[in-house]
């Protein structure tokens, strides 16, 4: 019996060590979210959907504001405002005062794609990583790997580099993407078609999500300054957003009042480049990040 237990334990240790080594290979190439669950708890955060994840670059904020900040934004499927994102933000936050929080808002992040837009149990983020990963500051994060990378473990060993790389500060960099006018136009066309024909008909404003945005601001306000920003998007995407919520600023008025400032950058939509109409290209993202950082620095809250 002892021999059996000894050998079983030994073989388990050997194999678990090998698996651990493989897991430790997980990095910014693994997927678009993993790294955000491996960094320490944060004092300052950038929050929002993929527009913020790709568009807002923490290094720019750090240079201008002289403050460490981490991008904890995901996608419109993963991190629209709601219970799941709120709880995850609380887990990631280190509960220290003096923080800075930049929250990217748009009509999609306070809307739902389900028959009952206010029914929490129907929210699609329930089945994704933010809800499945309760520990958000472990490296390597076995919990994340086991619950979210099922069926993809071989990619940890034989990594295929894509055009996405998630930096340690949470910024999702998209590179090696064709930015000639034809390629961009084709991607924009595809994205707009998806949003116009697929997403828009299914999406409805959710008062529950709006309440969670307010709840999130209230929570963060206890620990620092909270700024709301609406990031620029392609002109045609803006038209779709107007169809979804023409009076967006009015809808989030209560959230704006609670915050330390709201910067709507959509009037400058035409000034920037987009990879697909929905996301800023990294060079434009850098410019936008600089503008927001300076706006915060100058405390120029109401443009």
């Amino acid at each position, binding site marked *: 019996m002892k021999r059996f237990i000894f050998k079983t334990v030994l073989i388990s240790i050997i194999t678990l060590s090998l698996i651990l080594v493989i897991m430790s290979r997980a990095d910014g190439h693994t997927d678009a979210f993993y790294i955000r669950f491996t960094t320490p708890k944060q004092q300052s955060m950038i929050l929002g959907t993929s527009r913020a994840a790709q568009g807002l670059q923490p290094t720019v904020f750090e240079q201008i504001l002289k403050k460490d900040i981490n991008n904890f934004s995901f996608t419109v499927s993963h991190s629209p405002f709601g219970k799941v994102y709120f709880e995850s933000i609380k887990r990631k936050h280190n509960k220290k005062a003096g923080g800075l929080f930049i929250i990217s808002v748009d009509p999609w992040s306070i809307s739902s794609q389900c028959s009952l837009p206010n029914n929490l149990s129907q929210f699609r983020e329930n089945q994704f990583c933010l809800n499945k990963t309760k520990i958000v500051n472990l490296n390597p994060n076995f919990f994340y790997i086991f619950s979210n990378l099922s*069926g993809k473990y071989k990619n940890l060993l034989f990594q295929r580099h894509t055009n996405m790389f998630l930096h340690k500060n949470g910024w999702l960099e998209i590179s090696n993407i064709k930015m000639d006018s034809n390629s961009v136009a084709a991607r924009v066309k595809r994205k707009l078609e998806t949003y116009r024909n697929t997403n828009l008909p299914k999406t409805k404003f959710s008062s529950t999500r709006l309440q969670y945005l307010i709840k999130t601001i209230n929570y963060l306000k206890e620990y620092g300054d909270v700024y709301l920003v609406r990031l620029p998007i392609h002109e045609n995407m803006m038209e779709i957003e107007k169809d979804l919520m023409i009076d967006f600023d009015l809808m989030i008025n209560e959230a704006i009042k609670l915050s330390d400032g709201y910067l709507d950058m959509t009037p400058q939509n035409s000034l920037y480049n987009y990879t697909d109409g929905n996301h800023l290209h990294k060079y434009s993202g850098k410019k936008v990040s600089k503008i927001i950082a300076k706006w915060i620095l100058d405390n120029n809250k109401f443009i």
Partner: protein
Amino acid sequence: MLFNSIDFAIFLPIVFLLYWFVANKNLKLQNFLIVAASYLFYGWWDWRFLSLILFSTVIDYNIGRKLRIEENQTNRIILLWTSILVNLGFLGFFKYYNFFLDNFITAFSFFGTEIKVNSLNIILPVGISFYTFQTLSYTIDIYKRKLEPTKDFISFSAFVSFFPQLVAGPIERATHLLPQFYIKRTFVYSKAVDGMRQILWGLFKKIVIADNCAEYANLIFNNSTDYSGSTLVIGAIFFTFQIYGDFSGYSDIAIGTTRLFGFDLKQNFNFPYFSRDIAEFWRRWHISLSTWFRDYLYIPLGGSRGGTLMKVRNTFIIFIVSGFWHGANWSFVVWGTLNAIYFLPLLLTNKNRNHIDIVAKGKLLPSFKELLLMLLTFILIVFAWIFFRAENIGHAFSYISSIISPSLLSTPYIIEAGTGRPILPKTILLLIGIFVFIEWLGRDGQYAIEKFVLKWPKYLRWTFYCLMVVGIFLYSGQKQDFIYFQF
């Protein structure tokens, strides 16, 4: 609780240690621990249905005791039928109620009478088909005086609910498993190691082969109208390996687990895809169910002893009932019927026992004739699985008609989920190739890696085990439920 879950990985060592270190002095305590662990294992999924198992256990235990003392034949028949009706009643209600209701309504509407009866939202209790058959075998064997009823309720409860084989078999006979609960189990090192090896192989089959094949089989079957004939053939082959890896993998884990506790269960799969005809396939596929139907249905009906008409009738009955056992859908009935049609010519020409021994025994490669027979049998099996996997008969026929088209000769491809790119999943095809090769090498054992690994030096064996565990981790597919849980 699923075998391929973290929960089970924690549960099993705890039960193992309690069993051998805390309860080892007392047989009753060991059996009680098995019952408690089994109820926990089952209740992990849904505790409400524990009452069904407990009810079946109490009924059959008492009927068994009464059958022993009852001499009056009429009363004995009443007791037997009480057990049959209670057990099949539960099974019928939970599994077939809505099916019969829907068909009843359809039949009436066909004759112009519209009836409105609401179907019930019934959850099928996991494993009900398995433990029902296991307890039925107990009562029937006592009725036939092949078995003495037990006086030990705990042993009987352990027999009915034994967690490794509770939810998806193998369906053990009381004559084989129940006596093992009466005698003190001793820990045998070689047996436990063998059990671990079988668990490892079972996990490989389930997690690597079945789950990966499931991903593509589901993709192809669920979007069958979008794919060419050649891709649909690949889809059917993926399902063929999915169901084998899934079910035989479960059986391997179950059997291996029982060996850790000092038990022996019978082999449930004996390399069925190396069969040279359908009769051989059915002697090698889900052996515990096939033999159950043989002993408790086919033989009581007269088996193959009567005239041709009786042979034909009995063959169809056993295969159709077997199909229906799998699920409340006409597609399972067609699957059973198809197998009866495959089997019948062999039975009527007395060729159904032509291939008893293992194929190419003692040889590395089969003869050309053997290879051809295996290939032909495999094609028939794959074809039949289409009915088993399809949503309904209509879907099966449209799937088959799409195969029989000029696109059968085109290059197969699958639309990758997420990217939308056309791909051929080479990695899983390679894994299937390796799997078939290892199964072929180990086809004279109870499971593929039972014997040939033992011939290797220790360091190589250890390396193999470690690499297998790492391989299972790396090549695990998207986690899927065991297919046979739904039966």
